[in-house]
Every structure is written in structure tokens, then in C-alpha cells.
């Protein structure tokens, strides 16, 4: 049964990558990559259960947090062009 779930997750990851490749705007790409990251977390968790090594869940936890920070960082970069603190007058996310 884990195989089914894994196949579904991999299909979803492929679709998300397709959108990240096609995506007309940068926001489509960020959305698709965010979704890809979420699916990575699920895939790691399912693989951990399938191989009976639930220690993999620590990696999944790390990926869940890293994905969020990555998306916000890329959004800030796409808006300001730098990673520094926004100056006065700039609208923060």
C-alpha cells in the first residue's frame, strides 16, 4: 500500500516540476517548487515507513522547515533583488 502512495506522490512531484518548467511567471514556478517541497516531505516519511526505518522522519521535519524558509527567501529576493532588510517605505511580505 505504501507503493501506491509513493507512486501518487511521485506523479504529483512530476506534475509540479512540469509546471515549474512551463510556468509563465516567476510566481508559478515558486508555487510549484513549494508544492514539490511539501511532496518531498511526504515522500521521505512514506519511504521511512516502507523500509521500516522511521528515523527518516527527522529528515522530513527538517525539509518541512527548510522549504518554508526557502520559499520566503526566494519571494523576498524576487521582490527586492537582495536579501537585506527592506528599507523604509518598502512593503514587507
Amino acid at each position: 500500500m505504501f507503493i501506491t502512495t509513493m507512486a501518487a506522490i511521485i506523479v504529483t512531484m512530476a506534475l509540479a516540476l512540469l509546471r515549474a518548467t512551463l510556468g509563465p511567471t516567476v510566481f508559478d514556478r515558486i508555487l510549484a517548487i513549494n508544492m514539490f517541497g511539501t511532496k518531498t516531505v511526504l515522500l521521505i516519511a512514506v519511504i521511512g515507513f516502507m523500509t521500516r526505518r522511521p528515523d527518516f522522519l527527522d529528515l522530513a521535519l527538517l525539509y518541512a522547515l527548510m522549504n518554508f524558509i526557502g520559499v520566503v527567501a526566494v519571494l523576498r529576493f524576487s521582490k527586492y533583488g537582495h536579501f537585506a532588510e527592506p528599507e523604509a517605505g518598502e512593503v514587507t511580505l
Partner: protein
Amino acid sequence: MDMLVDSISWICLVIGSLFAVTGGIGIIRLPDVYARMHGAGITDTMGAGLILIGLMFQGGASLVTAKLVMILFFLLITSPTASHALARAALHHGLEPLVTNKEAGS
């Protein structure tokens, strides 16, 4: 009893997989960024939630389940925040949402 827990876990996993693939198809077929967020939202809430709940039934009452609860908690906090930031950035960038009824839409 084991059989029952396994069945519930499998049902959650399969329904979660269906939701995940639905969101994947949605992110390909929907017309613009704001619409595609619906597809991403489905996979982030129902897909991830049901798959992780299914895994929790497999884990039983142990540290594994506690970690799964933490993963679910962080996903449920971070993915709406990321979507909100994305929508705000897209609007601020000047991307107009697609509106079919031009008079009703602003």
C-alpha cells in the same frame, strides 16, 4: 483490532494519494497563478494531512507518531503562510487575477 487499524490507515493513505494527484492535475490545468493556488492548497491540506494521519495509524502510540504530529503541525502553519506571501507578492508585482465577469469583478 490490528486489521481494523491497518484498514483505516490504508483508506487514509489512498484517499490522501487521490487528493495529492488531484492537486497535481489542478496545478497543470488551472489558468492563472491565483487559481493554481487552489490546486497547491488541496495537496498541502487534504493530501498531506490524510497521508500523515494514515502513517500515524501505522506508527501507533510512540515517538514516531509524535514526530508525524510535529510535521503535520509545521506543514499546516507554513504552507498557508507561504501561499499568503506568494499571493501578496504576485498582487504587489501587478499580476491581475483572471475574472470571467468583467462587470462583477473589480
